[in-house]
């Protein structure tokens, strides 16, 4: 996987335990690298499985699952879309199937996919399409690092702190304990 993404600006690349998490690799990318990464995956004959968002404390973690027909091994590509302006470029131009998955993610979480050729509501009635049912109430959002499996880190951009354990000074315990809330 590191060879496939050679030369791309990645934030985080980790090998995951397939037996436990069901995926082989996890990659965090800045939104600007997403289309280039999708191009590489398309060229390497990966197929798209699904696109989803998880509403975390830091923003919407938009996850793209890819798998391979001949050499199975799921790859999760992740992009963080901030709550204030959740905008991610569309990959529907490369993977035609992404068009519907992106529209579904817009319906559920309100993430905007720039460049989607037909960005209208897919599953939810247009009259109530801006209710975003899967957005969580800010108090119940959980931090990314407490939710997602870190995996065995192969590369981590020094400026990327999303998956890093909290510094003890902040009063958190690393290894999963949640911040105490009143």
């Amino acid at each position, binding site marked *: 996987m590191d060879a496939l993404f050679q030369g791309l600006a990645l934030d985080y690349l980790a090998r995951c335990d397939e037996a436990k998490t069901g995926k082989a690799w996890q990659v965090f990318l800045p939104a600007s690298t997403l289309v280039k990464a999708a191009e590489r995956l398309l060229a390497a004959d990966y197929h798209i499985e699904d696109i989803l968002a998880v509403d975390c404390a830091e923003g919407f973690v938009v996850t793209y699952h890819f798998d391979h027909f001949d050499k199975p091994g799921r790859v999760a590509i992740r992009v963080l879309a901030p709550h204030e302006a959740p905008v991610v470029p569309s990959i529907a131009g490369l993977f035609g199937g992404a068009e*519907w998955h992106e529209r579904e993610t817009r319906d559920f979480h309100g993430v905007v996919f720039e460049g989607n050729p037909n960005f209208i509501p897919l599953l939810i009635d247009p009259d109530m399409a801006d209710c975003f049912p899967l957005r969580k109430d800010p108090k119940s959002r959980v931090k990314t690092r407490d939710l997602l499996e870190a995996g065995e880190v192969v590369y981590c951009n020094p400026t990327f702190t999303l998956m890093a354990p909290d510094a003890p000074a902040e009063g958190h315990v690393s290894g999963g304990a949640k911040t105490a809330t009143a």
Partner: protein
Amino acid sequence: MTLYADTQQVAGDFYTNNFAKTAREGSLILNLGPQHPSTHGVLRVIVEMDGEYILRAEPVLGYLHRMHEKMAEVKTAAQFIPNMGRVDYGHALGWNWAFVGAVEKMAGIEVPERAEYVRVITSELNRIASHLLWWGAYLLDLGAFTPIMYAFDDREKILDILQMPTGSRLTYSYFRIGGVAQDLSEDCIKSIRDFIPWMRSRLPMYKDLVSDNIILRKRIEGIGVIEPAQCRAYGATGPVCRGSGIGYDVRRATPYSVFPKLDFEVPTSDLKDARGRYDVRMIEIEQSMRIIEQCLEQMPEGDVLVKGAPKPSWKVPKGEAYFAVEGARGKIGVYVVSDGGKNIYRTKLRAPGFCNLSLFAEVSQGTILADAVAILGSLDLIIPEIDR
């Protein structure tokens, strides 16, 4: 039916107003569905026609949308299992399995071996029932009324068998986190043993009556060619990708349960058309019967539910997992991520029909309308699964 004169819009709703017409003059916009016999429920397709030919087609979804993923947020894991029977009524046990499998994976729960066999037997029976439902309904789409009578006769026998352990006939919620709800009774096993030779004796009749029928051949051969590259771009799986020559089956590619111990073939077809998909499904019925026979031979005695299986109020431990099974329509995937709270933090359901249908717009372009119906049917659509 709404006639558009050039760009001047006369009528229509949100979806027809947002339908990107091709530049062709004098084309006709036609609404297929949502209530239409060939759309298997409530699928709507907006098509732009030039005479009999389709210039552009756009499926409109959501008429059966129930937001199962939101329901997963407000129920505990065990309470969510009945929802899985209702996502896809054709292969309900496949969805049962995908969800409990994902939760078991995350919690590290080992399922007793007998339960694994029971799961394989029941879900393969369910797959045969699903293929029979498709077969009858597809031929009905193509104008052949009689086959569905035969298909439903056979399917009825499977429903009778599955009713014994599951207690229901269509929307099963039989699997539990850590096993299945109850063991197969002696009666049930005997009925399965009787069913298999009987079903085998029916298949040659199906072939003579329908598969080799010249009218059917003219309707499906060379229609709706899907290239392997399109399967990748759209994530098409199951008989759709196997009908295009890709030998991908989750039971083989990422084996789960006792499938590594079972001997069966993954049929593929290089025809890539509706015929290829038809052939693959017909062979899969035979292969499923082979699997069931082997399971009945190999199945050990023992429990069917792990000791200390989770109670309804059980909290799924922290973590994330993606689990996929091979459903009748392709790869059923369930992604769960939990923060250790009462309910699962986020559940994502990957419906194979959703991905398979998404390539319809591209494949139907340039075909005549009657063939588009033949293509739509060959994808084996179950709308509640697509809309979730």
